């Protein structure tokens, strides 16, 4: 019975696969007309991908192997790394024919006919011709070629032993390291079979700086230790020593077998290799750093697998096996849609509970430490680590790719450009970048405004562009990437750039800049984020809707992000938005008032003044003024605000914070520095306290309150205004910003 179903599915597969071949051919024909059509390029790739994926299900390894190469070349074509010329097109036609031939072969083999050996030979020939387009060296070639290349690489080793190549950096000796000690240490891991010191890099005696290290070693080591363990011998000299660790043949075979049998479901090549022990986590991080030094999309950027093989970090056979496994994983993922829909409030509740758990665990750890029972401490610590992992896992559940948000701008750009009679193409980079769902939800509006702005203000009309020597069609790039613990979203256009003379004139008119002042270009550019700014000559139905860039900035700062603008006159404008990955974790600045700890979101902090003097205001008032560099800054005394008994004898410190264009000072007892923490929603008790936004748990287990900078600056400003009214307009000249707009 199930045999029947299988037969039916098989028949269906052959029909489908032929259809896909036809799709390849028709896409190729259409691409001859329009070689840059992304949809067609995607369709082309998908067709090959589908054939490969389904053929795998039916055990048609020859089809999978061959189509893999076709798919690779199409992927690179899709990425714009190679272009579709006549020779490539005709080669792809041949490939499509060949796939059909293989399919027929497979179908008849099923009927008992012997497979045709000439088909296999033809596969090899085509793969060789495809090689220049797949960009693969030893990595993705036919198994036979790959195996030969791998053999050549490992001929360097003596098969039974690990081979270590060490190159010590110039400062090794000066940093106090002795390579002889490290080689000696290696002997504790196993038996050092041979060491060869490289004499060639050592300068001639009269040119030698004897305190600089020029030593390199080739070492053969027999050990049962793992690659990770061997690498640990170098953990102290990591920064001053380049290490290559090449496993013995037997190990390579083990690694390949492990990769093939493990069913490792990781999506990343690097993870599969690390898990199998082919490379260490440290080697992977270094390789990725090297790879990322070249921007994505640059043709000189190499593939990870290729680099690992070339640099002799990983054996080619292992990379090959991992690549196959990775492809299998991807296919598996697309085969079954592995998603579960979950209501987001359930998720929020879970995250909230996990937050409680983290706090409870911190409390338990502290209690355990008081007992001085080391077994108890040990087990609470390991529980704490697990809870940490649960927290990270729970937070990652909320992460979604930004692609969906980006995608809707395709339509927006097309429509808006049409309205404005401009020609604009939109490019999206990094759609797969993930960030917290709540951030994604809130970033849509500011992005919409910035994109519209780019089209409306930044982009010239096609005629203007032509006159300026630019292509008629303008270009807007929306990109997202992870960057130093946050996410960086950029909106780039190649329009006219910011007209600084106009911005400056407007700023002087608004009183934001003193007449005659000459701010730096970047300062002028960022003036457009000030309240009430619009330099559009005429009010179109897009601009002048009462929403200014100041609102964009406030929205982004509300997400604890920051926005910057950079512009090249005549060359375009780039707006960079930096956002935290998640709203559940905060980079904070910790301060102390009396016996209470407060956390100020770091993105709001401008500067800290240790031991501020020149504070004015009555001793019992909540607010006052601080003379800061010839200007008066409204301040809030946190101790009075929250009724905390401050250490009165102490010199007080002030943290200067910013909310939008408003600045205020917060008077505290101690500045404790930066730290990262998880935000907990407030309990019912605090929910109505003005000036508090949330709470967190400090390392000591004690609760820290997160300050609501928005309401605190408001309080400071309101009081300052009241003062001013009392004293007439005497101090109004000290007021920098145009607060009537705020």
């Amino acid at each position, binding site marked *: 019975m199930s045999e029947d179903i299988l037969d039916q599915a098989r028949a269906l597969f052959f029909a489908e696969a032929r259809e896909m071949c036809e799709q390849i051919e028709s896409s190729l024909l259409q691409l001859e007309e329009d070689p840059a059509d992304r949809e067609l390029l995607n369709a082309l790739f998908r067709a090959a991908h589908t054939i490969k994926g389904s053929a795998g299900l039916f055990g048609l390894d020859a089809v999978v192997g061959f189509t893999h190469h076709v798919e690779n070349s199409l992927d690179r074509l899709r990425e714009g790394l190679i272009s579709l010329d006549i020779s490539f097109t005709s080669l792809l036609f041949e490939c499509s024919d060949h796939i059909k031939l293989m399919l027929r072969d497979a179908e008849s083999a099923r009927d008992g006919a012997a497979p045709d050996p000439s088909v296999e030979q033809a596969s090899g020939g085509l793969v060789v011709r495809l090689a220049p387009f797949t960009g693969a060296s030893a990595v993705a070639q036919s198994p036979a070629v790959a195996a030969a290349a791998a053999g050549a690489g490992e001929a360097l080793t003596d098969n039974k032993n690990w081979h270590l190549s060490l190159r010590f950096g110039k400062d090794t000796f000066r940093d106090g390291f002795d390579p002889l000690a490290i*080689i000696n240490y290696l002997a504790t891991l196993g038996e050092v079979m041979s*060491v060869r010191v490289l*004499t060639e890099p*050592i300068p001639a*005696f009269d040119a030698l700086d004897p305190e600089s290290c020029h*030593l390199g070693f080739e070492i053969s080591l027999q050990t049962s230790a793992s690659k990770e363990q061997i690498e640990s011998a170098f953990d102290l000299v990591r920064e001053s020593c380049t290490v290559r660790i090449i496993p013995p043949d037997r190990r390579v075979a083990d690694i390949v077998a492990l990769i093939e049998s493990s069913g490792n479901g990781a999506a990343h090549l690097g993870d599969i290799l690390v898990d199998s022990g082919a490379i260490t986590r440290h080697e992977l991080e270094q390789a990725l750093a090297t790879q990322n030094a070249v921007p994505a999309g640059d043709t000189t950027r190499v593939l990870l697998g290729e680099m690992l093989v070339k640099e002799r970090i990983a054996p080619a056979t292992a990379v090959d096996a991992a690549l196959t496994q990775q492809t299998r994983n991807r296919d598996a993922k697309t085969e079954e849609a592995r998603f579960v829909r979950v209501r987001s409030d359930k998720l929020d509740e879970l995250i909230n509970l996990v937050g409680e758990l983290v706090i409870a665990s911190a409390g338990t750890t502290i209690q355990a430490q008081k007992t001085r029972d080391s077994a108890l401490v040990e087990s609470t610590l390991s529980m704490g680590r697990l809870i940490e992992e649960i927290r990270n896992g729970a937070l990652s559940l909320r992460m979604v790719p930004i692609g969906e948000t980006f995608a809707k701008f395709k339509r927006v750009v097309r429509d808006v450009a049409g309205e404005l009679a401009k020609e604009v193409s939109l490019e999206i980079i990094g759609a797969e970048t993930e960030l917290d769902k709540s951030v994604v939800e809130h970033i849509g509006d500011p992005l919409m405004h910035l994109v519209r702005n780019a089209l409306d203000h930044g982009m010239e009309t096609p005629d203007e562009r032509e006159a300026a020597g630019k292509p008629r069609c303008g270009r807007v790039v929306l990109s997202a990437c992870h960057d130093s613990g946050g996410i960086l979203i950029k909106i780039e256009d190649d329009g006219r750039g910011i007209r600084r003379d106009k911005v400056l004139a407007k700023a002087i008119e608004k009183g934001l800049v003193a007449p005659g002042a000459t701010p730096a270009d970047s300062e002028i550019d960022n003036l457009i984020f000030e309240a009430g700014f619009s330099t559009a000559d005429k009010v179109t139905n897009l601009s002048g809707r009462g929403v200014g860039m100041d609102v964009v900035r406030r929205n982004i700062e509300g997400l604890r992000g920051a926005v910057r603008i950079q512009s090249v006159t005549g060359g375009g404008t780039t707006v960079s938005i930096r956002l935290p990955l998640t709203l559940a974790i905060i980079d904070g600045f910790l301060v102390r008032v009396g016996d209470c700890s407060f956390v100020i979101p770091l993105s709001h902090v401008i500067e800290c003044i240790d031991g501020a003097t020149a504070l004015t205001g009555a001793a019992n008032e909540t607010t006052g003024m601080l003379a800061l560099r010839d200007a008066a800054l409204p301040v809030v005394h946190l101790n009075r605000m929250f009724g905390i008994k401050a250490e009165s004898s102490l010199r007080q410190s002030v943290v200067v914070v910013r909310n939008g264009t408003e600045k205020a000072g917060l008077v505290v007892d101690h500045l404790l520095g930066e730290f990262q923490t998880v935000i907990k929603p407030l309990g019912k008790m605090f929910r109505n306290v003005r000036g508090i936004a949330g709470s967190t748990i400090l390392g000591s287990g004690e609760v820290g309150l997160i300050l609501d900078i928005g309401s605190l600056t408001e309080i400071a400003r309101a009081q300052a205004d009241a003062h001013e009214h009392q004293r007439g307009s005497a101090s109004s000249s000290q007021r920098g910003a145009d607060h009537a707009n705020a």
Partner: protein
Amino acid sequence: MSARVDLPAEFNIYAVADVWRSVNAGLPGAGSSDALAIDCAQLREIDAAGVQVLLSLAHTARQRAIALQFESMPAFLSERLQALGAADLFATSHDGETRHE
């Protein structure tokens, strides 16, 4: 005239600059067919910086056809050089019994 250098008891990173200076001052030029004697009588320990000086010296001496003579070479040094696969550079100093892997 043949030059002569005494290695200190601890030939390590702290000593290499001084040793290098005194050897370099007395190092015969190319083709002088002179000899350089290195006295290891005091030598008690050596680190990689010291070994590097010896490697560079041996290499340069060979290029300039200067005969290097190690006097009272302690066993630990010849063992260490041998362990580094560098003993053949100092073949003149002992019987040339070097082992290759």
